[in-house]
């Protein structure tokens, strides 16, 4: 009885839709849903041959690797220095964590405003320095825009985990190394960085998941997948094809592909958690 609400919700809104997605991905229906026919794996085959889908894969790969590496790199740097300072760690932490609370779509709007070609403050400055910035026309610029917005939002999260990781490294280890004459640079690479590797790996998985799924709001608000289709990540394409272009079968097939990716990522994450216990 106690478990009934949870089971109802997951049954109705998780498993039933997932099953539907699987079924729909094997079907072909017209835009009004009046006729449905079974087409086997045609939808998947079409996806495989669809150049825009493969491009979207590529876009997503570029986007998530940029977000993950930039986000992790910057926050590791900040966390290292925050761990170093004697006083004020807490103040810096407070000042750095709040972007986590900003909604992705709001972050997208704010960054769009900063970098808007005609009125943005930053794009004006860039133009003054002789750099032609136009995220509406240049797909590299558009990609840079959503990467910056996504990284900005994610820094606080990575920062918290790195800071916690750094603070849990025993001070005696570092002192011992200092006695042996290792400078700060050397100490970082030989002691702190290797000891942080579980944290880094965990954050890598989380950041990739974040870049895959949670950035929909940023993309939709800042670039709408444009110019052309150059920043349409996979999730955006599922939404666009299913709800704007009304290609239900194709959209469902894409959903299934995404599910496979999530399952793979989750498995990787859990295997890693097991490994960490032995660490």
């Amino acid at each position, binding site marked *: *009885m106690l*478990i009934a*609400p*949870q*089971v109802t*919700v*997951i049954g109705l*809104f*998780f498993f*039933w*839709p*997932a099953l539907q*997605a699987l079924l*729909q991905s094997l079907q072909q229906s017209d835009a009004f849903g009046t006729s449905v026919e079974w087409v086997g794996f045609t939808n998947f085959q079409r996806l495989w041959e669809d150049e825009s889908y493969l491009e979207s894969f590529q876009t997503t790969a570029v986007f998530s690797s940029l977000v993950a590496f930039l986000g992790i790199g910057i926050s590791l740097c*900040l966390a290292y*220095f*925050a761990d*170093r*300072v*004697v006083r004020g760690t807490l103040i*810096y*932490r*407070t*000042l*750095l*964590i*709040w972007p986590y*609370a*900003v*909604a*992705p*779509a*709001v972050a997208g*709007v*704010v960054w769009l*405003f*900063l970098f808007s070609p*005609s*009125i943005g*403050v930053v794009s*004006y400055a860039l133009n003054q320095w002789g750099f032609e910035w136009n995220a509406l026309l240049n797909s590299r610029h558009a990609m840079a825009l959503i990467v910056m917005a996504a990284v900005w939002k994610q*820094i606080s999260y990575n920062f*918290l*985990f790195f800071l*916690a990781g750094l603070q849990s490294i025993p001070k005696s280890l*570092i002192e011992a190394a*200092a006695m042996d004459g290792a400078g*700060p640079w050397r100490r970082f690479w030989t002691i702190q960085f290797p000891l942080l590797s579980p944290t880094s790996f965990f954050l890598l998985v*989380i950041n990739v998941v974040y870049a895959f*799924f949670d950035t929909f*709001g940023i993309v*939709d608000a800042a670039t709408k997948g444009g110019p052309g289709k150059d920043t349409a990540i996979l999730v955006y394409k*599922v939404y666009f094809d*299913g*709800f704007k272009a009304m290609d239900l079968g194709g959209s469902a097939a894409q*959903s299934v592909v*995404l*599910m496979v990716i999530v*399952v793979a990522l*989750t498995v990787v994450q859990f295997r890693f958690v097991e490994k960490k216990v032995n660490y």
Partner: protein
Amino acid sequence: MIERNRFLDVLSHVVLMVGVLVVAFPVYVTFVASTHTMQEVVQAPMPLWPGSHAWENYTTALFGDGSGTAPAVGRMMMVSLITALVIALAKISMSLLSAFAIVYFKFPFRMAIFWAIFMTLMLPVEVRIGPTYQVVADLGLLNSYAGLTVPLVASATATFLFRQFFLTIPDELVEAARMDGAGPMRFFKDVLLPLSTSSMAALFVIQFIYGWNQYLWPLLVTTEERMYPVVIGIKRMISGGDAQTEWNIVMATAMLAMIPPALVVILMQKWFVKGLVDTEK
């Protein structure tokens, strides 16, 4: 501190300050833009110092401009607040109950249900939007609070968190409660609930932000302006293009949309950090 190194100490502070400034800059510009008139904002470059029109912009944003063309954000803030609160509270209570059932009762399919909950981790909203939308539409829940919240209230992470926590509670407590004549619900209410308050607070912060920041789902299930959460509302305001968009109002709205979750994070920082670390492990 291991050794004295003036240069590195100064460098640390400089790097951190730069970090803080870069992180804060977009929001500062947003704030500045929200205090100017539209003409001042759209000229390039816009002023970088707060202007004197804050009051008008925020009241226009909150209550509409009277002509009915600009949507009132006040209403949207209410929708967002209700949605976020319902999601957070429902998630916490549902996962408390299911974790309680899974840990303390023996019933058929217990492990099957446990794994079913576990598997939902692998099915985020984004990968099943189409079919989930159909279910909600068939149930007639479009444009309602139920439609906005119910599909999002199942939570595998929260259920796990409480399960792990309940497993650490010593059996002696259960026995003692039984000796004193407490039934299972009494035990739940008088022993488990008070013990789990800190986990509940931590989860509340995380889930409140999760609920407030939902974007894709509300975008699908709401088609009427009266049910838009503020995050969707903002997006709708900028769909016109640079010339028609009243950036000062949009930026005021953006500030309004950021303030509640940011306040929750900063004021409940301790719980927030605990919540993040707990839910992801």
